[in-house]
């Protein structure tokens, strides 16, 4: 390690340099970009519409016409997989983003003000943490769907899924942000800003938040795959999205029923989830090592 010669290299820049050297993480990063591109471009690159039935091709195995075969209603698996990527990735990314906003605001509030505010806010988190997340997910979905705000059933299922996952996943982020803020608050540069007469908002926005970015980015990278998995869990249990909507969890649930005779229906979405999860987890590992100077050169 030692002191670097160049001055003014930010923590983020240092981390980026460390990350670029990590081949596994870089490959995972490109894989994620690829999956995101596929998801975004779904209407243009998928060979068939995701809900179009080809009744002469029901439950066909992989062929030239249908690379990954067709399902029990004769729908093209590749197209369903591509559209599934769209929903699964959207669920992962959007919920991570929402939980980033809620979690950062909440955690920063608790950590910055401390004292009475902190204990009250943390007590709420303790309670939320005591309910198993899958039950919290189910409850939020149940309440939202019974409240009947959105008429369209498909849109309702998707919105309630996004809402439930966002409401559940901000908690761990808030914990981390709070811990980090408590640490950074003690730093002399914050003290310096305070003595220069900086406003509270300015101190938090300019000095605290940029310095806790590392752990937050790392946690977000781990949160995206766990949200994707949670979505597929719920859809697999029949409590999430429903066909003809296509997400990887819906496909897995579909495929599971005919596993022994038509394994391709199960394996295709399963492998897609596995690869995406692996890529996110490996990238998250790489990011953690990159942001943590102590870990450099150890593993």
């Amino acid at each position, binding site marked *: 390690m030692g002191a670097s010669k160049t001055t003014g290299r930010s923590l983020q820049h240092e981390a980026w340099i460390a990350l670029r050297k990590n081949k596994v993480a870089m490959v995972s990063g490109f894989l994620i970009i690829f999956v995101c591109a596929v998801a975004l471009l779904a209407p243009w690159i998928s060979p068939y519409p995701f809900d179009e039935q080809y009744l002469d091709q029901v439950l066909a195995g992989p062929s030239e016409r249908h690379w990954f075969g067709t399902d029990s209603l004769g729908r093209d698996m590749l197209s369903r997989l591509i559209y599934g990527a769209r929903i699964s990735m959207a669920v992962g990314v959007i919920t991570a983003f929402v939980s980033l906003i809620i979690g950062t605001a909440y955690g920063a509030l608790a950590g910055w003000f401390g004292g009475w505010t902190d204990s009250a806010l943390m007590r709420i988190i303790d309670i939320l943490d005591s309910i198993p997340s*899958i039950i919290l997910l*189910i409850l939020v979905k*149940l309440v939202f769907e019974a*409240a009947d705000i959105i008429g369209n059933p498909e849109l309702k299922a998707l919105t309630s899924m996004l809402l439930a996952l966002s409401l559940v996943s901000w908690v761990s982020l808030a914990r981390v942000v709070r811990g980090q803020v408590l640490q950074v608050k003690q730093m002399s540069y914050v003290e310096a800003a305070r003595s220069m007469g900086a406003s509270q908002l300015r101190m938090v926005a300019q000095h605290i938040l940029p310095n806790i970015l590392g752990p937050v980015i790392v946690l977000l990278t781990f949160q995206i795959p766990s949200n994707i998995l949670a979505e*597929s869990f719920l859809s697999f249990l029949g*409590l999430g999205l429903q066909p003809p909507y296509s997400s990887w969890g819906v496909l897995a649930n579909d495929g599971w029923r005919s596993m022994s005779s038509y394994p391709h229906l*199960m394996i295709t979405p399963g492998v897609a989830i596995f690869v995406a999860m692996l890529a996110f987890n490996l990238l998250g590992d790489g990011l953690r090592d990159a942001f943590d100077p102590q870990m450099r050169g150890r593993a």
Partner: protein
Amino acid sequence: MIGRLWGTGTALLVASIILLSFFNYEIPTPLVYLTALAFFGGAGVFIFTRGLTIYVIKRCLGAVFVMWVIATLTFVLLRTLPGGPFDSEKALPPEILENLAKKYKLNEPLINQYGDYMYNLLQGDLGQSYKYINRGITSIIAESLPNSIQLGVYALIISYMIGIPMGILAGWKRGSWVDFSSMMVAMSGQSLPSFLIAPIFIMVFAKQLGWLEPALWEGPTYYIIPMVVLGIRPAAVIARLTRASVLEVIHSDYIRTARAKGLDQKTVLFKHVLRNSLIPVLSLSGPLAAAILTGSFVIEQIFAIPGIAKHLVLSVTNRDYPLILGTTLLFSLILVVANLVTDLLIAIVDPRVKMG
């Protein structure tokens, strides 16, 4: 010395109960009482002598408070939901709806319903199911909980049995191919959704080899696939954490001292590294319990295991609100107790931890 004797004895008692249950033998009641006595008595003595009494009482009161908040919130949420459980079926005549509402006391003011519910809850009565006519929630839970607990405990044990040796080996031989390959396996295990592993296991061990049963929950050959599938993710997490913890300990000063004293590798590993690096792993038990709880939903569904999670999923589809409420409380209670026990175990194992 006495502490260690007690620890070993209690562990043996617990292990014997788990083994008996695994092989479907009747568990003798005196054994259960003896184990409970040894566990709680020993823990009580420990808590008292270490001056942890006030901390434990505080934590228990905190747990009761959390459970009360959860019970209240869930109750209010579920009772004030628009649309009732009896909507979904064909439109019922108003007289029948009236009778149903009367039977389940849905016409009374919410505060009275709440009072009733809390009063019954304190006596262990969780109310009547909307779906299963004339069945109490408590009896439904009593019937299915043992299966879920069995599944969860077996999965936890198998995950520790796989994860800890893997992590120690990887950390001890860091940088070697052993390290690399076991971490690759752990990473894959963490990324594999259980509904992908389960069919593969069923195909191989039940269909092809015919050694094990593909579904249901009736004996050792039925238990193995579900418990392994459920244990894989936690095992991967344990392995990775153990490795990180071993690396941390290896770099500490007291290990350097131990090596400088000229102790051989085996002594350093077993006497110093192991004991200190397993404490963070132990503190993972609470979150692991939560993970296993979550995982059990999919596992019980796939293997048609008559457990609580399956009831919860069904009750959501059926809108059986009392059953949702009861299972939610039960799962939260399990999690709260798991976290409490984890913290206490840490306090017992690690004298460095000071509890306020």
